[in-house]
């Protein structure tokens, strides 16, 4: 089992990801699953698999330059229900498809391990029988990939996460300042919150202002704001 030690240094997490891979197989009723992580050069390494079958591990290993995980990792999107017997569907990775078929697999899926724009790796699923994953199972597979993403990122030092959290905070704060501005205007005008909000919204629209920006102006300038005083 190749363990990309530099990618992750906490054995508990690797064990967790192995357990998660095995659970993927049970929950999605598929044949095999593996998790690959990208290194700083953008190359994928196998970090966990549902079983330690050598052929399966080789199948992951050859995806350093081609395969659905590579596509997902570079493009960021899901690649689901890839028919391994269809030359068109596998045109980008013929060698991988051939190896997969030799292992008895008929269908493969790759789901991104991604947080916003940050690509962490990919979850790779295989099934020996042809057929598609249901939308519900794709949602579940992506949920499991998300959990793996967070488990991996929780072990890393992350400056970028500040930015991500700031975006979340900004979205929430925008909504909070609008509520506060409603209260300020309702009190100032001695009117209802709904009426205050209607006038606030019309003013924002008529002046091409975003409501959250206008709300901040009202809060910052207090009673001095000319148009809405």
């Amino acid at each position, binding site marked *: 089992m190749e363990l990309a030690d530099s990618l992750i240094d906490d054995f508990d997490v690797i064990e967790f990801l192995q*357990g*998660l891979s*095995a*659970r993927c197989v049970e*929950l999605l009723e598929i044949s095999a699953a593996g998790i690959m992580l990208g290194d700083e050069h953008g190359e994928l390494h196998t970090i966990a698999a549902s079983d330690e079958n050598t052929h399966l591990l080789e199948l992951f290993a050859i995806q350093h330059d081609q395969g659905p995980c590579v596509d997902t990792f570079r493009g960021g999107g899901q690649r689901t229900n890839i028919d391994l017997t269809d030359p068109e569907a596998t045109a980008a990775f013929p060698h991988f498809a051939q190896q997969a078929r030799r292992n008895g697999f008929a269908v493969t899926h790759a789901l991104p391990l991604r*947080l*916003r724009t940050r690509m962490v790796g990919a979850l790779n699923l295989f099934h020996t029988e042809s057929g598609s994953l249901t*939308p*519900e*199972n794709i*949602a*579940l597979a*992506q*949920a*499991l990939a*998300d*959990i793996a*993403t*967070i*488990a991996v*990122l*929780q*072990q*890393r*030092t*992350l400056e970028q*996460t*500040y930015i*991500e*959290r700031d*975006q*979340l*905070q900004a*979205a*929430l*704060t925008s*909504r*909070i300042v609008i*509520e*506060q*501005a*409603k*209260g*300020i*205007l*309702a*009190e*100032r005008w001695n009117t209802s*919150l709904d009426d205050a909000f209607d006038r606030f919204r019309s003013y924002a629209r008529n002046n091409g202002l975003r409501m959250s920006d206008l709300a901040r102006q009202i*809060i910052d300038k207090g*009673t001095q704001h000319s148009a809405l005083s």
Partner: protein
Amino acid sequence: MLSEQAAKVLGELRAGNRTDEQLAEICADLLNADGLAVSLVLDMGHTELVWCHGTASAQFEDLQFTLGEGPGPDALASGHPVRVPDLAEVRPGRWPALLGALDGLPVRAVFAFPLGLGAIQVGVLTVVRNGPRALSAQETDDATALARLLTARFLGGGQGSNPQVLHRAVVHQATGMVSVQLDRPLAEALMRLRAYAYAHGRPITEVAQDVVARRLRFNDDETGPDVPVGDRG
């Protein structure tokens, strides 16, 4: 590792066909909890309640918000889960104001799981039970997975990362009104609302509703602060 039921819930969470309210409820059911809440960190230790199932859970979150102490704030500060299978067994000095304010609230067990990456805390998932019951190992695994998926959801920037409802909208509206009444900044107005709620042993959302309905005004005049409108001559 994940239970079958948890997998189903996580799939629902990812699929995006349900409201936040429904999701909070199915998550509470999954964990055999009577209430469940998610609060996100704003800044300077302030949190915003974005997911809630159960009135007792909402009131418990309000208390933690008003008093600034409890399992949720501790989980956020430490980055580790805080598990309290029986609040009656907690030494009084741990959360003196909170434990003193729980009278009559049907919350006996509390489990707070931080949402975050490394040292960075995004929010906290708080699960409550009305009886003294610990989480089983399976429930703990499921709650941990849920906390991770919620972290991905709220940090992910995609559908669902912006919560549907601000549960404390009324508190923010009241804060705006009180800031005008007192001619003071919003932060101070919020502090006054919290202090009033604490002093009168009432949930802050209830006090805020009184302000918004103009049953309660905050004035620093000779008649003293906090004079209800109806009581004025």
